[in-house]
């Protein structure tokens, strides 16, 4: 999970597709696009003539808007397909859906699906670049990239940083991508959750585990809270939300014992009062709004990496500054 990608990145399905050098490259490209985003007209012609289709089999307003905004700021044409799971179940296969959309002439398909691996299947059938916008419990690589960017922005670097990922790791695509990305960049990751909300085995995972948030929180540089879903209660994974909050929620009392410079992060949408106290989400140490803002620039970087300037070439940040910034001057 470290080192440069062995070949030019064709799809972004998993953080492992990038490796540490690939993540760094996305970070550098993001710096350029953050600069673009600050302009009065935050738009560059870098992907003019390219078409980006978002294919969402699961509702996700924020991720879809973030990708579509990113594509538009790169001057790509965008198409959006929202497919309700029920209608697909009755009708065509995933392959037929993917081929139908590709036939409309798209260069990139951004896929969100409730099933782990669905973007990998799509990538095996189409010539277009595929970006995983979240698949089941598996990965959400652009979320991890924007999380890395946000941590670097606030703390300088991830190397040696102690990151706690707290909550429902078992069912979290964000956690799987974050673990891969944070550890690739040298962070020291600890998962904090009851055993029922951890994967069935962590063999081979470069993480530590704690079942005691109070014991590990005071030393942490980053507290990354995951959303706990109500349905986990009915699966007997935790007895009640109240008990979950008491043991694993970032309450005001717990937040007061964090280090002064510790960051609080959350992928959204938050359950205020459950995994995070309402007051804590709004503290200066909270980077939650930064995460959303950085999402657009990170997704611009990813689309540019996959589609910009001929994707047979590994781009550098200098290339993109020249291509993106230069053209728009």
């Amino acid at each position: 999970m470290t080192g440069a990608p062995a070949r030019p990145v064709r799809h972004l399905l998993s953080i492992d597709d990038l490796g540490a050098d690939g993540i760094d490259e996305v970070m550098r490209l993001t710096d350029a696009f953050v600069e673009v985003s600050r302009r009065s007209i935050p738009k560059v012609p870098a992907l003019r003539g390219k078409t980006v289709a978002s294919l969402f089999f699961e509702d996700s307003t924020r991720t879809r808007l973030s990708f579509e905004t990113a594509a538009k700021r790169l001057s790509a044409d965008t198409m959006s397909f929202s497919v309700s799971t029920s209608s697909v179940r009755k009708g065509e296969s995933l392959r037929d859906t993917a081929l139908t959309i590709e036939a409309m002439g798209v260069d990139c398909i951004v896929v969100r699906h409730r099933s782990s691996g669905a973007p990998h299947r799509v990538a095996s059938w189409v010539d277009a670049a595929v970006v995983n916008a979240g698949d089941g419990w598996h990965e959400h690589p652009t979320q991890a990239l924007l999380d890395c960017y946000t941590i670097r922005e606030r703390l300088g670097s991830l190397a040696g940083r102690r990151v706690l990922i707290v909550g429902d790791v078992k069912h979290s695509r964000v956690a799987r991508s974050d673990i891969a990305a944070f550890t690739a960049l040298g962070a020291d990751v600890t998962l904090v959750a009851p055993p029922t909300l951890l994967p069935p085995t962590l063999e081979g995972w470069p993480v530590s585990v704690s079942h005691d948030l109070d014991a590990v929180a005071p030393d942490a540089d980053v507290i990354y809270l995951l959303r706990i879903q109500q349905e986990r209660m009915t699966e007997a994974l935790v007895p009640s939300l109240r008990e979950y909050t008491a043991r694993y929620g970032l309450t005001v009392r717990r937040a007061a014992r964090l280090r002064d410079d510790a960051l609080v992060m959350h992928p959204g949408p938050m359950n205020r009062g459950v995994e995070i106290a309402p007051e804590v989400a709004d503290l200066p140490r909270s980077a939650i709004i930064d995460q959303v803002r950085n999402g657009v620039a990170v997704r611009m970087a990813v689309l540019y990496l996959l589609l910009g300037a001929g994707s047979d070439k590994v781009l550098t940040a200098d290339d993109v500054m020249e291509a993106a910034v230069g053209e728009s001057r």
Partner: protein
Amino acid sequence: MSTVAIKGGRVLDASGARAADVLVDDGRIVAVGADLAGDRVLDAGGCVVAPGLVDLHAHLRQPGNEEAETVETGSRGAALGGFTAVVAMPNTTPAVDGAAAVREVQDLGRTALCEVFPAAAITVGRAGERLTPMAELAELGVRIFTDDGSGVQDGRLMRRAMEYAVGLPWPVVLAEHCEDAALAAGGHLHEGVWSAKLGIAGQPAEAEELMVMRDLALARLTGSRVHLQHLSTAGSVAMVRAARASGVAVTCEATPHHLALTHAECASFDPVFKVNPPLRTDDDVAAVRAGLADGTIDAIATDHAPHTAQDKEQPFDEAPPGMLGLETALAVACSESGLPLERVLALLSWQPARIAGIEDSHGGPVQAGRPANLCVIDPAATWTVDPARSASRSRNSPWAGRTLTGRVRHTLLAGEPVVVDGEAQR
């Protein structure tokens, strides 16, 4: 009727091997010996002439899912794979749980390229609530009862089925798909490192093992025979080994895929590797092989489970479980089991024939007077699996693109050469 001479091969059956020609006339073997002549000659040079293979476990999908397979297409694949007898699983639509459904599959089998023996469900509709009319169905010829696709969850009902079976005048056996439904619920692959990494809910090995444990206990309690289907875990194999040593009347089978493939195959998210029970760990594969080698496992059974491309071109968790197996079983067993051919044939022919209660017509010795259900195998032939060339209506072979050693050259069904030089004759 014209005679067929199978010439130049080495005859191999339960009694051993010897160089001999085999002469077939009117559905039976009429002579085994040197320099036999027939109206038609099938070349067996370099080959082994063996009793036809017997599959205890195939899903032929008819009635109800003829898009995926029919008795005809499944039997053609079976013949190409060297099988002369196939036990058809009853999880069709509707389920084979009554006399009419048994007769329908038997009728479809009359024109098939292998003999088709319908298994019947243990419970009506495979719903796990009421017993099927086992005596009536056994009288029609059913010898294997199973709710395959799921296990009988209610231990009391399974006990009653076993007790009832003991009292029947036919040698029937209850076959169980061992899976504790609650523990396996929602799982799409083996629960372990790959399910954790891929973010897909897994089925723990214990979901299988708990029902193996229960059924061994019930067999001991009732004195019934029990046959455990497609064992996939080291724990299951160990429990069967111990139970048999203590006198429980248990037999069991393993599939070609469970003796060769692991859950690491699922890393591509390709549902062609989704199967139930799921592909397990290296240790489980080693235990299945050891069980085959030491006789704990009695049979290799395909669990041939065709699914249409449409059904498999879905995400992993939405695709149905199952893989093709009839055309590749022998070659996989020869290539991957590490066992000599005579052991492979015992596991694929005469041992399953006895479990299915069809040893009078299949899997018996190659000698004059016996029904001419035979296969001729070139053990040295290598071939690359191309699902597009499969006889099945489906293409979901996990062996696609793999090169295997051991190939069926000819298959004779009741004396009729249904496969000649690797080609189906009808």
